[in-house]
């Protein structure tokens, strides 16, 4: 069985990465033809869209459910509102209004529209609109809706909006919820996780200011740009096999293009829309795209579209670090240090989303770990391979200062969330729907950091190759489909083995922690047995004798966390002898008694395979104290304190040392 699994894994890793498409693409379900005009004064997009929906579910659908995402910015009562910075004025608000909804035969459905928060949801939320239909859409039938809408973009604070003449339009048009065999699946616009939609084709025509001609970034590709009256430009874009459409424009964009052709993989046209003051980051963006496309292409499937667009937003635009099909946003500043892998690390993360959520289109609202978690795991691996461990960067008076003597290994040092996952993930298991979680910190930690740490721990425990092979198979099998957690676990079990599946399932299902501690390590000279020894006529009395040259050592390792993890326990003895024991970690504790040389130290999980362990400090114990680390730090802290005291003298306006 093991051999078969290894063969399967190996075959999956070697499977040819040649086809331009990742897998069989599903026929279009929800396609959009949109025409919209931008009013720069009012910050509105007024337009008309024709939605063509093919009911490929097994269920008859009596209504249509539309996401009006921009209504998340409508007022301070929306479900999204707690995630938005405190609004300061009318420009911080936005909305999406349905002016008219009709069928192709002219049947007006506008009056039927109702806002439909899920049961027990926020009644003030208007991000979901339900439209009862004159007759249900039966399986296999096509529904065409003609919708006139007006979208008012807020000042950019969260994913979408404008800043000066930069506009990033995401979630800007009325969009169908996801059709499933259980009916429409749509959730209000939540602050943490957002999207789930059907695949389709987009044909979008935008009327924009003439000054942005050639500077419009879109999902898919711009196919035509024609000058119009009143110094405007008509931009037509097309995208196939995508589940969303976003665009951005700015007259200040510097547009660069590079065709990337990773070895053995299809060519991809990479477009970079760069802020002029971020020119230093140009090559960093392209490098991340080049190397990311090659790595992910090898680890997963070839990049599934012919174009990749990277938008570099201005700082403070709120459009940073987002992913849409074929379009991602980065984030950098003019002084961003080149050595720390930014914006490359971020680009690698958003690029990985092209596979996990872009092509493998999971339900981000309910199962964010399937895209953010897998993406965090992959991008951390890619970043470590390309850049190595980055250093933390502190910013003082607008100047970023990398602390080069410190390193943040990925994924455990990726962010404060990752470092604090033990604290934040205690409230909710990862499998809980994100919008039911305690708070944003719990969502972030579970979806991003905990899943990345979990997968990295599985790779280190059960083997890197089987896990990567499982990811590859999962990406291949579910490209342009909508898998769930159980689909992922099935592939994992099938390719990487039941232990890998079991570990991931345990890590996701529990809000508990992993914590192994060596709670006792003693060693003493072993004395020969004293008292009555032997039976019957052979019973003899042995007087207590002085201890001999050998030692008797006892070690206790306890599982303090709720989650069991297989661990190694390493015991070091005098003379350099080392004994390693493997423990499945399931019992509450385990004791070992060893005779031989003097025990020096015991460490559980010495190779740091389980990155979820919440306290690495208690992972080991010495039998004799070793004061070096404490002494070294006491020495450093004393010097630091002496200089801080001098700083106090400076604050008290004593002469000297002003600068």
């Amino acid at each position: 069985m093991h051999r078969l699994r290894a063969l399967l894994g190996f075959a999956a890793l070697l499977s040819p990465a040649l086809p331009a498409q990742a897998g069989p693409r599903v026929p279009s379900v929800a396609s959009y033809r949109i025409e919209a005009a931008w009013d720069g004064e009012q910050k509105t997009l007024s337009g008309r869209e024709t939605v063509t929906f093919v009911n490929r579910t097994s269920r008859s659908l009596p209504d249509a459910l539309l996401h009006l995402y921009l209504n998340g910015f409508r007022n301070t009562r929306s479900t999204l509102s707690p995630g938005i910075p405190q609004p300061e004025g009318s420009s911080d608000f936005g909305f999406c209004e349905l002016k008219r909804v009709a069928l192709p035969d002219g049947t007006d459905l506008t009056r039927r529209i109702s806002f439909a928060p899920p049961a027990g949801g926020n009644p003030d939320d208007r991000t979901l609109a339900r439209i009862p239909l004159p007759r249900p859409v039966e399986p296999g039938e096509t529904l065409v809706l003609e919708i006139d809408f007006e979208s008012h973009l807020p000042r950019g604070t969260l994913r979408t909006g404008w800043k000066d003449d930069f506009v990033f339009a995401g979630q800007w048009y009325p969009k169908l919820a996801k059709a499933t065999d259980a009916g429409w699946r749509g959730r209000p616009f939540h602050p943490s996780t957002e999207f789930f939609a059907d695949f389709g084709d987009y044909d979008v025509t935008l009327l924009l200011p003439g000054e942005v001609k050639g500077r419009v970034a879109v999902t898919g590709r711009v196919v035509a740009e024609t000058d119009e009256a009143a110094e405007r430009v008509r931009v037509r874009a097309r995208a196939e096999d995508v589940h969303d459409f976003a665009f951005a424009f700015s007259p200040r964009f510097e547009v660069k293009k590079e065709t990337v052709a990773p070895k053995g993989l299809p060519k991809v046209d990479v477009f970079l829309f760069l802020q002029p003051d971020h020119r230093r980051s140009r090559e960093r963006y392209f490098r991340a795209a080049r190397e990311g496309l090659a790595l992910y292409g090898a680890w997963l499937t070839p990049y599934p579209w012919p174009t990749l667009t990277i938008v570099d937003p201005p700082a403070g635009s709120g459009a940073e670090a987002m992913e849409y099909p074929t379009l991602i946003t980065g984030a950098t500043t003019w002084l961003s240090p080149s050595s720390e892998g930014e914006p490359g690390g971020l680009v690698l993360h958003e690029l990985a989303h092209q596979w996990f959520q872009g092509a493998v289109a999971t339900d981000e609202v309910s199962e964010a770990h399937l895209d953010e978690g897998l993406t965090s795991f992959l991008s951390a691996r890619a970043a470590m391979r390309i850049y190595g461990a980055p250093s933390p960067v502190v910013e003082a008076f607008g100047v970023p200062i990398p602390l080069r003597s410190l390193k943040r290994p990925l994924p455990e040092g990726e962010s404060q969330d990752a470092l604090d996952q033990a604290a934040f993930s205690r409230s909710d298991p990862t499998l809980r729907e994100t919008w039911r979680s305690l708070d944003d910190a719990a969502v972030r930690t579970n979806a991003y950091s905990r899943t990345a740490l979990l997968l990295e721990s599985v790779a280190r425990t059960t083997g890197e190759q089987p896990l990567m092979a499982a990811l590859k198979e999962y990406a291949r099998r579910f490209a342009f489909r909508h898998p769930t957690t159980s689909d992922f676990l099935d592939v994992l079990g099938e390719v990487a083995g039941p232990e890998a599946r079991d570990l991931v399932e345990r890590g996701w299902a529990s809000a508990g922690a992993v914590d192994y501690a060596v709670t006792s390590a003693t060693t003493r000279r072993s004395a020969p047995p004293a008292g009555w020894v032997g039976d019957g006529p052979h019973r003899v009395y042995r007087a207590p004798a002085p201890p001999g040259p050998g030692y008797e050592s006892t070690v206790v390792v306890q599982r303090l966390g709720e989650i069991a993890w297989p661990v190694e326990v390493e015991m070091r003895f005098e003379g350099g002898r080392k004994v390693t024991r493997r423990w499945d970690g399931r019992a509450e504790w385990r004791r070992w008694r060893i005779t031989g040389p003097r025990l020096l130290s015991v460490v559980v999980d010495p190779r740091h395979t389980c990155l979820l362990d919440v306290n690495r400090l208690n992972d080991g114990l010495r039998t004799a104290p070793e004061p070096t680390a404490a002494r070294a730090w006491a020495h450093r802290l004393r010097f630091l304190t002496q200089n801080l005291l001098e700083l106090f003298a400076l604050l008290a306006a004593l002469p000297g040392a002003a600068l």
Partner: protein
Amino acid sequence: MKGHALPFLWARGLLAAATAWKALLLALALNAALALVVTAPLASRLHDLLDSRPAADGLAKGWDVVLGAHLIRSEPGLLGDPARLGALERGTLPLADVPRLSGPLAGLFAAGLLHAALSALLAGGFAGRFAAERERGNLAAFLADAARLGLPSLFIGLVGLAAILGAFFLFVELPRAATLSPDLRWDWERTGLSLLRLLAFLGTTGAIRAVVAQSRAALGLAKTANPFLALASGAGFVIGRPVKALLLEIAFGVTALLPLSLWLYFAPSWSGGDVRLLALLVAGQQAVVLLRIVARAAHLGAATAWMRGAREAARPAPAKIEA
């Protein structure tokens, strides 16, 4: 080179400080003793936490971000209240919360205030000795001057502190939101305005500290220990020569920070093993702190020499004595 040229004043300040070497060593001893008291409980706790843990090996060479996070999380009060510590790190701790710090941070804050007060008292001693014609190195005379001029010197220091806090509020805190506004179009605008804030604060602080230095010099040179007169005299002196006063401040600022910067950049870090290396490093560290204290005192020495020279130059020349 003129007697009041900047390099000359700088050298005279250092020479004056060198003559008061006993007092400088006393200041160093105070600093070291306070640091020892503040860090002793923390050091003891570190021994409790780390001595028996093999994972601590990763901390001996330097800070390990991941292990450090585990240490702080498992001992949240190690450095004091973690929430306030985080706010302090981010520079968002409200000034009103500073006295409410807990743990070693509270100790550091209290010791810092005490150190500042003691330094201000000692500055009175330095001012008296640098103004004296003879016995500049006499420790008893230094302590007598500290007793006589210490409180006025402390008062001048407090006025300076209030002015510096005002400058901090005015130049750093008040415009913070405006200079970090996301509405600024270009990154360089935000950086430029932030640096402008810093520059304005440093410039104002430099001027305030120059006034304090000259006021203490005036205190030493005056016959009475009146801090108001000294402040007026010091302020008037700096207003008459603002650029040079600021340059002198900068010169001694660089003198103080240069050894520290060099040390931080080049000095090795002790991570166990050779105890002789530890002794050498401790000696080097004390030399760095001493140089900072020397720079502090030398600034006062230079200020005194400069003020005395200026007064002498302003005095009318004596009439020619006929034989």
